[in-house]
């Protein structure tokens, strides 16, 4: 199982001090968080893509390329790549390029983006969100898999004899997760292609997450990619930890109360009951995270949101120490002990490359002897 962190990249005033970091400081802080994630033994760093303040990461491959140069093990991913408003041609190029620079340590999570005003800035309309995700992704897949593409669709200029460069590393396209919160169509899309499905459940009740994952698993099996329990599932999580539970609650409450998205709404206690948010001791985080498996089955990727709502970098780095030292090692052991042998791990560049080579060998063996 893979463990990691995902960052939205918000610039939010620290409600306890009133200080607001600059965009530059926030960008550097995200890099620092990625390096720390590798240092403490996490498997994945994923970052958001946004084109409106108060968010900084508009250019994820620039940032991930910089991080790639300064890390050696961690998988670089996105949370999410806007498949609706980006040109699929540019996504194909940018991430193939990043794959080469990062020696294959790259995958992507597709997302639609739920900020209405962003769509028209890129010539689109949020009401076409699902259709855009479907068409753009279909094109993206072909650009990575076919050297020369002729293509015509509804949303972008046709392509004639187009080759997206560079070709994916080892001719193995990056693995793709489809991120969704409430659209059954996206679970269907992930299942159809046999791609991964990431339910960004951090602000949602587990009962809903369970339904979405069940749908994805059933349809994954329907499309012949394997048994339902072999589908590739990822979940989010949101935690804040201190040795003593009460200290964690006391320290995190002002950030919670003023947070973008849910601030000024439910109490920390209500929200913790309704969603995966866990504010408490490392042991409580371990127990809560293990409980996700009871709702969705054995899954492959667990990402934690650690750095939003104005938490200072110093605090976030402390949190990553706790996560890496006290929580993830236990979770790794416990999840591994529970997972049956036929449930696969999340694909990586190495595993996809090996699978492609096996498929090629099989083809040669089965070539009839003339």
């Amino acid at each position: 199982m893979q463990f990691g962190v995902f960052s939205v990249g918000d610039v939010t005033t620290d409600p306890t001090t009133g200080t607001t970091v600059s965009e530059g400081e926030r960008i550097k802080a995200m890099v620092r968080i990625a390096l720390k994630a590798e240092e403490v033994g996490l498997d994945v760093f994923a970052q958001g893509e946004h084109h409106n303040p108060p968010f900084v990461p508009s250019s994820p491959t620039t940032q991930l390329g910089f991080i790639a140069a300064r890390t050696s093990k961690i998988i670089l991913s996105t949370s999410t790549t806007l498949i609706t408003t980006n040109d699929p041609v540019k996504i194909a190029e940018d991430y193939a390029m990043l794959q080469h620079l990062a020696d294959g340590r790259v995958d992507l999570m597709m997302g639609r983006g739920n900020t209405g005003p962003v769509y028209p800035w890129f010539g689109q309309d949020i009401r076409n969100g699902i259709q855009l995700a479907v068409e753009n992704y279909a094109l993206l897949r072909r650009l990575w898999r076919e050297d020369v593409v002729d293509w015509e669709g509804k949303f972008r200029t046709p392509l004639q004899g187009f080759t997206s460069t560079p070709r994916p590393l080892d001719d193995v396209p990056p693995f793709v997760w489809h991120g969704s919160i409430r659209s059954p169509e996206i679970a269907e899309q992930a299942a159809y292609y046999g791609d991964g499905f990431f339910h960004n459940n951090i602000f949602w009740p587990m009962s809903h997450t369970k339904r979405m994952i069940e749908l994805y698993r059933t349809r994954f099996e329907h499309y012949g990619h394997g048994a339902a329990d072999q589908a590739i599932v990822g979940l989010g999580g949101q935690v804040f930890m201190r040795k003593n539970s009460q200290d964690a609650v006391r320290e995190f409450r002002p950030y919670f109360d003023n947070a973008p998205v849910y601030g000024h709404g439910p109490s920390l206690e209500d929200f913790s009951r309704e969603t995966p948010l866990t504010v408490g001791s490392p042991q409580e985080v371990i127990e809560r995270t293990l409980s996700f498996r009871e709702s969705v089955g054995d899954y492959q990727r667990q990402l934690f949101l650690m750095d939003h709502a104005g938490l200072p970098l110093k605090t976030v780095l402390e949190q990553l120490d706790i996560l890496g030292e006290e929580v993830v090692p236990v979770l790794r052991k416990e999840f591994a002990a529970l997972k049956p042998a036929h449930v696969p791990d999340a694909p990586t560049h190495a595993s996809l490359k090996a699978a492609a080579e096996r498929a090629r060998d099989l083809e040669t063996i089965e070539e009839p002897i003339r």
Partner: protein
Amino acid sequence: MNEKVIAVVTAGLTTPSSSRLLADQLADAVRDELSGRGIGTRIELIEVRDHAHELTDNLLTGFPPAKLREVLETVTGADALIVVSPTFSASYSGLFKMFFDVLDDQALAGKPVLLAATGGTERHSLVLEFALRPLFAYLKALPVPTGVYAASTDWGPNAAGLRPRIAQAAGELVSALHHETPTQADPFENPTPFEDLLNS
């Protein structure tokens, strides 16, 4: 004996609430009307005030907390609705509107609804026609022709005038119950096959 489930949504704020009083009288009238036709009634009463915080939470987080979720399911699962709003500033109250704002906009499609409101002055009785009716038309519900508005005076000297309006509206709601409410396709039970999404 078959049974109809009537959800009553009332948004009064005071205790005792005149909106609640009107809601109870409407529910009783509907119960009488149904039993006259040999049909049983289960009344599910929802005081919106009891869910005021949860409604705000829902608007801010995008999902209903557990208790509110149950209430919303009761409303969407009912055979018919009775809705009562106090008149605030010549319209339904904000709290009343919030309740219908967090419902899915298809959730009430085809459902018979009895519209009712209370107010300080009888001069605002058209709140039913100018505020509540368009709202429920938008939600594709089936509001019955007669709405019931009760001003302060309807609880005193004009009380006798209120009774026939309540009976009339209750009769219309029960007649509307013979409509088959269209059941909605569950996208989780019957997802659109991906080939259809690709070709649409």
